[in-house]
């Protein structure tokens, strides 16, 4: 799913005093001209070290988010309440794993292996989208995730698909195409609860209440410093500020929830005269605590992934035999 705001490059300035130290300035000028002209950078092309580093970090985090993102919804596959919902949910979660697969491949073109990335995920070194550290406690959560979290992911991914790195853009284009189906099935399932019995509707409102804050957190804290003219914007690694993306999301989705006679638990959530959405302080301390491993489900999510890695090890070991070519059907 889920490139989110936190899955974004780090601000170079915070990280290194001179990210361009040692670069060939002539090559750099050519590289920047190409990007300015709207050309895509391909794996074999020259690129600054900092560009490579930031892209690996971003694509890898995005891939991890797809893998981990499959878990909260995945636990509902066996409990989906109708044949149609069951089939749609399996297909959706399957797609998310497919997205991870595409993204790991895209990141590998920059020189980090899938295995190394997965090891960094399991050791807690690499991050993934914060929203997946919250539990999906009822069926209504599945519909809120399908509609709103996938909706937020689409906002982010459509914007990032216009970036400069060719393999990432192409993966994102395909992902966005599939995401539009996720959004449709999420919306359909959510509307069925909204127009259902009193109890179904109450379950949905409860889920909206619980997911409101993680959704506001989704795009990450304000990054005012980076809005214009930073290196990463110039290189088209970062395509929009976190606030702009969040605002676009709220503008598209808040009315859709209110249309259904439902709402988010924030009296301050409103669009001001300048067309900018305002909301209450979402407690960014909680966001940072979760990102740093202390959210409600961090440990559980990684434990599940580790279980799968450990129990599948014998299979992977037995298949490492280059003389036998594998036939791996992808749907």
């Amino acid at each position, binding site marked *: 799913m889920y490139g989110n705001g936190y899955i974004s490059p780090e601000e170079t300035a915070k990280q290194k005093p001179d990210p361009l130290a040692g670069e060939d300035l002539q090559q750099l000028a050519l590289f920047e001209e190409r990007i300015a002209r709207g050309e895509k950078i391909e794996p074999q092309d020259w690129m600054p070290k900092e560009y490579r580093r930031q892209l690996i970090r971003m694509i890898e985090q995005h891939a991890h988010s797809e893998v981990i993102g499959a878990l909260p919804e995945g636990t509902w596959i066996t409990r989906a*309440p109708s044949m149609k919902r069951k089939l749609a949910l399996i297909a959706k979660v399957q797609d998310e794993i497919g997205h991870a697969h595409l993204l790991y491949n895209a990141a590998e073109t920059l020189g980090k292996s899938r295995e190394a990335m997965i090891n960094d995920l399991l050791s807690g070194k690499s991050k993934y989208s914060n929203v997946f550290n919250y539990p999906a406690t009822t069926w209504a959560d599945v519909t809120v995730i399908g509609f709103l979290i996938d909706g937020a992911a689409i906002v982010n991914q459509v914007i990032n698909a216009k970036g400069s790195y060719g393999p990432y853009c192409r993966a994102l284009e395909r992902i966005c195409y599939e995401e539009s189906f996720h959004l449709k099935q999420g919306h359909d399932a959510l509307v069925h609860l909204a127009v259902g019995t009193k109890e179904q509707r109450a379950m949905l409102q409860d889920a909206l209440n619980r997911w409101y804050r993680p959704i506001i957190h989704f795009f990450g804290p304000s990054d005012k410093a980076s809005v214009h003219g930073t290196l990463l914007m110039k290189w088209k690694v970062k395509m929009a500020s976190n606030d702009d993306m969040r605002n676009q999301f709220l503008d598209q989705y808040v009315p859709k929830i209110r249309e259904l006679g439902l709402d988010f638990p924030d009296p301050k959530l409103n669009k001001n005269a300048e067309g900018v959405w305002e909301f209450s302080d979402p407690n960014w301390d909680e966001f940072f605590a979760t990102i740093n491993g202390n959210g409600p489900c961090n440990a559980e999510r990684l434990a*599940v992934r580790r279980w799968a890695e450990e129990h599948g090890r014998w299979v992977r070991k037995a298949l490492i035999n280059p003389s036998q070519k594998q036939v791996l059907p992808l749907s």
Partner: protein
Amino acid sequence: MTPALYNFILKTADDCFILGHRNSEWTGFGPFMEEDIAFASMAQDKIGHAWLLYKMLDENAAAAETLAFKRAEKDFKCCHFVEQPIGEYDFSLMRHFLFDHADQLRYEMLMNSSFEPLAHFAKKFKGELKYHTMHADTFILQLGNGNEESKARMQSALNFCLPLALGIFEVYEGEQEIISQNIFAGEKVLQEKWLEKILPIIKDAGLQMPDMATLQAVNGGRHGFHSDYLQPLLKEMREVVDAFPDAIEW
């Protein structure tokens, strides 16, 4: 529809439905991403087939939901093999191999069924099933011939699965009628074709076939007597539906 035909379609559908449910449990937990995706897509096919077969029993859309979500455990006609928990990948792969070869052959035989909707159905999904057995064969061959551990695991999975797999072919109520009306040539015929098909693959995988004469089929499912695993599976599947008795739609 005669009771015999109803029973025949129902047990076929129940096998697909319950195995689809089991296979869907692998989504996100496979030994590598490609296998997550493969098991998820097989699960969709199986559940999709079951849904179509349930609808064959009653065109009313709500009836299929009732069959899946409201029916009593004793009214299910699936075999014990599909009810077993997914266990480790070795068991799930072996079940997929043994079951899907029987399934594919069943549909091949049904292509000539005198009951037109089944013949039509069988032709339509022929390709899909071929794809599943191809997937199973690939991995059985590779893991059987892999390393010591994978070979040992696949051999014990085979030994464990075979008696359960024989339960696929259990005689059911009305079978004679189904055979004499040329709806389906019968479970005995299917079992023979199945053995012919799987034996060479098992051999190529470097695995030993246990002595069939000593194996006791795990039967009962076709008559509504199930393993201890079916009831909890159904309970989990119906958790949401049961908690909202007044809800009409989801």
